[in-house]
Every structure is written in C-alpha cells, then in structure tokens.
C-alpha cells in the first residue's frame, strides 16, 4: 500500500514535470508558458519528492523540507522573470489576450516608495 502510494505520487509528479515542459513548447507566448511551467513543474517536483519520502519512510522529513523549499522559492523567481519580460516588452499573443491592465498598473505613480 505504502509502496503503491509512493509510486503513485512519483508518477503523478513525473507526469506534471513532463506536462510543464510540454506546455513550454506548445503554448503561444511567454506569459502562458510561464503559467504552465511554474505551476506544473512546481507540483511535479513537489509530489515526486514527497513520493520518494513515502517510499523511504526514514527520509520523509528531509523530503518534506525539500518540497517546502520548492514551494517557497518557485513563485519568487517566476514573478520577477515575468515582470522583467513585461517591462522589456516581450510580445504577448495579441489574438488571444483579452485584457491588458499592465500599463495602467505600472503608470499609476512613479516608483519611489521602494527601498526598504
């Protein structure tokens, strides 16, 4: 039972890791690719690591720490990268995109409150 569940999680993770990479190829523009990659690979790595933790019960705590770190760090880099892409004007798929409030958001006021 434990082994079954562990392998289930492993394969679940592998499927999503693959899916993230596949979405990376298939989706039309940077932002949607980013959606796919961030979500799917994070969950994929998370559940693979947990699967290993369940297969080897002694390792569970450490695997949990790895998984926690993945959850903690993935959004930080992706948001920074996405904002960078947006600001430098990486084109988005004009046909499909329905609403773009980014200009409004960034031009609201000059960035000066930053710093601390």
């Amino acid at each position, binding site marked *: 039972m434990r082994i079954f569940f562990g392998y289930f999680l492993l394969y679940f993770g592998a499927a999503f890791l693959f899916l993230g990479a596949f979405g990376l190829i298939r989706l039309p523009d940077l932002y949607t690719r980013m959606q796919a990659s961030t*979500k799917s690979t994070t969950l994929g790595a998370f559940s693979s690591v947990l699967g290993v933790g369940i297969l080897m019960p002694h390792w569970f705590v450490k695997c949990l720490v790895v998984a926690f770190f993945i959850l903690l760090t993935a959004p930080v880099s992706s948001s920074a990268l*996405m904002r960078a892409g947006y600001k430098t004007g990486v084109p988005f798929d004009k046909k499909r995109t329905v609403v773009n409030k*980014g200009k409004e958001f960034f031009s609201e006021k000059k960035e000066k409150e930053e710093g601390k």
Partner: protein
Amino acid sequence: MEKASKFNRYVFTVIVLYVSWILITATTRTDELIVGIIVSLLVAIGTYDYLSIQGLRHLSLKRLWFLVIYIPYYLWQVILANFDMAYRVLAPSMPIKPGFVIVHTDLKTDSGKLALANSITLTPGTLTMDVKDDKLLVHWIYVKDRTIEGATHEICGRFEGFLKVIFG
C-alpha cells in the same frame, strides 16, 4: 502594522530557525539539538531584522490552527490548478483567453501579501506579477471578469479569509 520589539523578533527568529534546524537535520540526537540552539542563536543575530516584523505574535494558537487548516486547502488548490493547466495545455483547441488584470487586497502586512501572491501564483490559471500597495497585477490564463472587484472575488476570495487571520 507596527514593528514588534527587537527582542521579540529575535526570539521569534530563533524559534523558527531552530524548528527548521530540527527539520533539516531530521534527527533528535542530543548533540544535534545542542548545536542547533547555538547555530540558531548565532544566525538569528544577523537575520532577525529580515525575517519578521510582528515577532512572536505570529505564534498565537489561533494563527497556527488556521495555518494547519490552510495548508491542505492550499495543496488541494495547487492540484486543482494543475489539472486545470493540464486540460488547457493538452486540449487540442487550447482553450486559453489570457489577460492581465488588477486585483485588490485587504491584507496589510508584507508577509500576508507575499503569501497571497504565492498562493495566487500556484493556483488555477493565475500568476502574480507585481504587488503595489494594495493592488496586485495578475496574469490570468482564462479571464472571466475584467473589473477589479469581479477579479478580486474570483481570484483572492478563496484565500483572503485564511490569510487575514494567519498574517493579521
């Protein structure tokens, strides 16, 4: 939200670091525990200013309890998000309707907003790009509502209740 006193934050940092030391070493041998205390005390000297603003207030029972409930809910949302994503990627017609929308949040603390942003990033169809004061710029892969209020309800509604309690 005013800052807690230095000592308060220091103690909080030491506790957090010590717990994570125990998790990282994944053992309860005495020597590890002793060294863990020393290391956490030393590391906390340099970092208590960064980790937290509210200090020990994070550790009230109610908050911890909500955190415990929140984590499974959050994980469930992550899994849902991925099935959603899988559908959008694999479906031949590729049902996406992306857009950048602004949402509004009532959370006041920095860590609260960070948690909200992280949650949004990893949940169905949305990815936070930037946070400014009480507004978040979100990339939404299937825009359902273009107005601020509607989008806020659709995206943040699931988490804000929890996060308000957890991070004040």
